[in-house]
């Protein structure tokens, strides 16, 4: 597939197209960040006894006294070489900070995603085969409820229900602090802390996916070739699971592929409510701290992930569907 010249050309072209977009995004975000009054030094030392001269000195050290456009080009110049600056919050390179926390987000996202697919796909397919049945209607309502719930509210409800009232699950955080444990116990501890956030993320996403699968399946089931298969006298089971499903799988696979990069982006709200040390939560905190470098790094990462998702989705579409040829 990648040996195919057209494919390589297409991918290269798409990757090149991403560059102006990334530049555009970086300019908008950088100037937006720069417009927020106060900077990292102010955030850290506002209540301290430093003289104004000292503060000015520290700002100059970080280059914060330069005009905005100059700071942008400094940042951009470094960024192209892979250096995304220093996080003022953590006093570590931005890439290190991202690297530290992104895997926490990834674990949550991955497990939720797997659960989501494991539930949504079968349910969606079955819903489509038994349209307007009780099963279909019930799950449609559940799906809609999932889409219509604000994420923070779901998180709070779960916390209240399972953690505060029933005491089954820990309230927040990733691990229990202050207790020594063996690695196995640690692992179990983290897993226990993971339960509520994962449930939250899964329930959020499952609605949309279920509906999407159901719609795709419905579109296929009404096609003529399905009718042909039925009139050939094939058992319904084969008609559905061999013929219909294979075709419905096309949009589903592209959807899954497109969603994969997004697993790294972190769930801002859910992580914050559950105190899960993921990259989303860190980002929200960094806004308060005016950690410019980190904010830029994270936003650029997100933009890149979005574009990669689109690219992956489009490429997969042509790979999986023999009727599509990329232009």
């Amino acid at each position, binding site marked *: 597939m990648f040996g195919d010249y057209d494919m390589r050309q297409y991918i290269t072209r798409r990757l090149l197209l991403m560059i102006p977009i990334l530049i555009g995004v970086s300019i908008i975000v950088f100037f937006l960040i720069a417009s927020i009054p106060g900077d990292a030094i102010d955030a850290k030392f506002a209540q301290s006894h430093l003289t104004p001269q000292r503060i000015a000195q520290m700002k100059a050290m970080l280059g914060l006294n330069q005009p905005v456009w100059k700071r942008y080009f400094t940042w951009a110049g470094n960024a192209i070489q892979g250096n995304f600056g220093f996080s003022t919050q953590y006093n570590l390179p931005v890439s290190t900070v991202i690297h530290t926390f992104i895997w926490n987000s990834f674990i949550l996202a991955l497990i939720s995603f797997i659960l989501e697919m494991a539930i949504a796909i079968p349910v969606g397919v079955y819903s489509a085969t038994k349209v307007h049945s009780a099963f279909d209607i019930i799950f449609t309502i559940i799906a809609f409820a999932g889409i219509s719930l604000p994420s923070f509210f779901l998180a709070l409800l779960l916390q209240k229900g399972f953690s505060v009232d029933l005491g089954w699950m820990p309230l927040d955080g990733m691990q229990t602090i202050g207790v020594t444990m063996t690695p196995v116990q640690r692992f179990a501890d983290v897993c226990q802390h993971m339960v509520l956030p994962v449930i939250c993320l899964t329930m959020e996403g499952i609605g949309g996916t279920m509906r999407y699968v159901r719609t795709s399946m419905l579109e296929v089931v009404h096609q003529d070739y399905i009718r042909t298969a039925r009139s050939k006298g094939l058992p319904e089971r084969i008609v559905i699971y061999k013929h219909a499903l294979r075709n419905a799988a096309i949009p589903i696979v592209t959807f899954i592929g497109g969603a994969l990069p997004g697993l790294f982006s972190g769930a801002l*709200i859910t992580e914050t409510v559950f105190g899960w040390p993921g990259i989303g939560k860190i980002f929200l905190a960094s806004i308060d701290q005016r950690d410019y470098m980190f904010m830029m790094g994270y936003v650029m990462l997100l933009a890149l992930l979005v574009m990669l998702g689109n690219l992956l989705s489009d490429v997969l579409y042509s790979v999986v569907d023999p009727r599509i040829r990329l232009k």
Partner: protein
Amino acid sequence: MIGLVFLVAMILICVFGPLFSSYNDITQVDIVNAKQAPSAMHWLGTDASGRDIMTRLMLGGRLSLLIGFGATAIEIIIGAFLGCVSGYYGGIVDSVMMRLVDIILSLPGMPILIMISAIFSDRHVDTGARIYLLMLILACLGWAGTCRFFRGQVLTIRETDYMTATESMGLHDMRKILKHIMPNVFPLIIVTATLSVGDTILTESTMSYLGVGVLPPYASWGNMVQEGSNMVDFTLHPWMWMPAGFCILATVLCINLFGDGLRDALDPRMISSK
């Protein structure tokens, strides 16, 4: 089908919101009287400042719906029109527009909204004005998706026979767009708008929850949940935050069901069903 049934419910929410709010309109000002009392004379209790939760819910509903409909209206008008223009002309206009749309779509929504709000906070923008600014900002970020969607629709419509007919009639370009293309995508506009309102309400409530949307003393379902989410109130006074959250859920659910039902109803008459 299901949607139409819930449409009635949704209209009821819309109606009882404004109507009964005139009951206790003094809630704009703090009554530091009965603090955190349980459900008695106040149907849903009072919040930390002694204000009646029920009334605040309705006032909050007003605001959330206002922002939802307002932002959606602006964004749909801009997005649909620009989308049609872009799809119709093609060429440079289309390329430039799509690049711009791509950039906006690649911006992570929530972070950007939070940052913009931080700018407002520090510049001490009046909380009343912020509501309208919020509407504007949400529309500014939202038009991109709508634009791309309608552009796609126009690309399909452009090749149909009746468009060729208008071509041969020698109609002015703008006339073709406004009088022929847009009326055809109109049902789609309605459906998109409906679903977008639900989405906007969710975004606005999340922002208010984070403290960057509608600020106190104005009530919004989002910031009511936030007010009731501190250590003590969360566990001991659930009436302070739970009703607001359920309101959001109920309203958005009704909107989504209605929009979905609408889409199903209009489906056969639409050019492409996506």
